[in-house]
């Protein structure tokens, strides 16, 4: 029998990882919602940011949270560059081309990282990597708590940005109806560029804050993109609040399934949920049918 404190501990770690997953998925779903592009390379952008953060710590002894000052603008630029060089040229192409081109980007990132850094798993040890404080029956790991808090803050900031600012409203308008938005004077190409860059930045932020307690290798991106898919679909592709709820849900499912069933079945369970949702509610658990 598994004790209640163990379950609470698992739920807590599910909550923490779920928050990070939510941020990753929101970046993914924002890009899809606006540009209609399924970015297979999204998880590898997380990986790339992890490597940058890792090397900033190793070479300049920059704390991962401080390194955000470098990482966030850098990856906004990376996103913009990717958009201008590649994505822009395939926006009008069919979905299959979107998938293949972004898969190509995934392979570029993976093999670049593998070529320069090798395939080994690397990690860093910060002062707080192993710290935790006891709260009631559970131990709260500091590094994971920090990652979750920053992720949720970022989600909130993004939410406010989309809801309140002119640019945010332009993004939502373009997602809803591209022609309509263009008609009322929204600079749609610029909105696409900004959305893709913001999505990239969200992935980078998530990557940076998990470095204190996660190992990085050129291949960790796969795990993140698979999670982002599932979460984005659960929440309804393109929906930011849906992705937040989906992220937390997947965090819990992952934590509990590794506790009760088997860690190696975790992905299978997550994907079984994905299939069920796609069959019965393709607009997502939290989304609304667009018919």
């Amino acid at each position, binding site marked *: 029998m598994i004790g209640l404190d163990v379950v609470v501990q698992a739920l807590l770690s599910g909550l923490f990882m779920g928050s990070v997953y939510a941020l990753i998925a929101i970046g993914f779903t924002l890009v899809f919602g606006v540009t209609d592009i399924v970015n297979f390379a999204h998880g590898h952008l997380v990986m790339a940011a992890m490597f940058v953060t890792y090397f900033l710590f190793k070479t300049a002894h920059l704390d991962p949270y401080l390194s955000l000052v470098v990482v966030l603008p850098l990856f906004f630029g990376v996103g913009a560059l990717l958009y201008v060089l590649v994505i822009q040229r395939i926006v009008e192409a069919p979905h299959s081309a979107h*998938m293949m081109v972004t898969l190509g980007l995934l392979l570029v990132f993976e093999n670049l990282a593998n070529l320069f850094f090798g395939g080994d798993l690397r990690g860093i040890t910060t002062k707080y990597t192993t710290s935790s404080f006891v709260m009631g029956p559970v131990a709260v790991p500091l590094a994971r708590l920090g990652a979750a808090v920053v992720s949720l803050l970022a989600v909130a900031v993004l939410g406010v940005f989309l809801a309140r600012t002119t640019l945010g409203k332009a993004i939502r308008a373009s997602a809803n109806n591209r022609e309509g938005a263009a008609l009322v004077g929204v600079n749609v190409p610029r909105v696409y560029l900004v959305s893709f860059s913001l999505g990239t930045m969200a992935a980078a932020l998530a990557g940076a804050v998990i470095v204190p307690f996660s190992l990085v290798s050129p291949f960790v991106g796969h795990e993140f993109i698979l999670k982002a898919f599932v979460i984005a679909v659960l929440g309804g592709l393109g929906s930011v609040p849906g992705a937040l709820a989906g992220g937390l849900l997947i965090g819990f499912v992952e934590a509990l399934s590794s506790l009760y069933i088997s860690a190696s079945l975790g*992905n299978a369970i997550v994907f079984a949920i*994905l299939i069920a949702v796609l069959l019965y509610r393709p607009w997502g658990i939290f989304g609304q049918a667009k018919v």
Partner: protein
Amino acid sequence: MKGRLAVGVVALGVAAAVPLVAGQHLLTAFIVALHAAYMALAWNVAAGYAGQFSLGHSLFYGIGAYASTMLYLKLGLTPWVGMFAGAALAGVVGVLLALGVYRYNVRGIFFALVTLGAAEVAKGLADNWHWIKGPVGILLTMKAAPAEFFFLRREPYYYVALAMVVAMVAISLVLERSRLGQHFLAVREDEAAAEASGVDTHRAKTVAIGLSAALTAFAGSFYAQFYLYVSPETVLTFEPQLTMMLGTMVGGAGTALGPVLGSVLFSGLGEALRNLPFENTRQVVIGSKLVYAILLIVILIYLPGGLITLGRRRA
């Protein structure tokens, strides 16, 4: 037509003569390339001709690999026969998957995600299924038993792989000219219009997935016999799927020769580099993958029909 037939015969003659000049290392590269070409062609049936962009074909590849291997180990059935059983099983699974997916009208990007999910679920189940040795995988013994699809030398594998590609190209050409193939194309180009003009689109899509799944399973069986090792990590990951897609999309989806062209370019050269005595083999192989990834992106942007359309434009 006659000219093309002549070119085909010459190409086949050259291909048949390769083992006479190629060493065992280079021959391995050719086998890998032919195997990739076969897989790409099998995926192309669903994705290229019928426009059903499946990301879950590793599932069918894995079924083929495990079916022929388990039938051989448990019942002593020769893989020559077992591979057909695997194909039948994969075909049934493909049809069932398609029926489920199309029953709920899952299309486009969602279809791709469901099929990807199906393969991931299968990998998770295989990892936890003790009868097929879970993540440890199954090792086959190397021996000389041609009746059981085991060879000590590379040449027989090469000819089997070549025969599979030739058969698959023939199937593709027949399909292109058949009524079924026309229905596939109609579904791909405009499903609503196809439906309106009397094509049973659900049936066409289901047949496309089932046929493509069964054909893909043969590749899985070949993999098991060639590498003598089957595990979820080798046959049920995204890797086989990626091989199929790269070859097809680089060469040209929805054509009978494009996938061969793309696969030979992609796998053949990569494998040749791996087997040639370079100073830094690892860097060379990774570097070649990097070049292909960039090539893929450039081709999809500037030549969406694949390399095969280059020749067509000139003609």
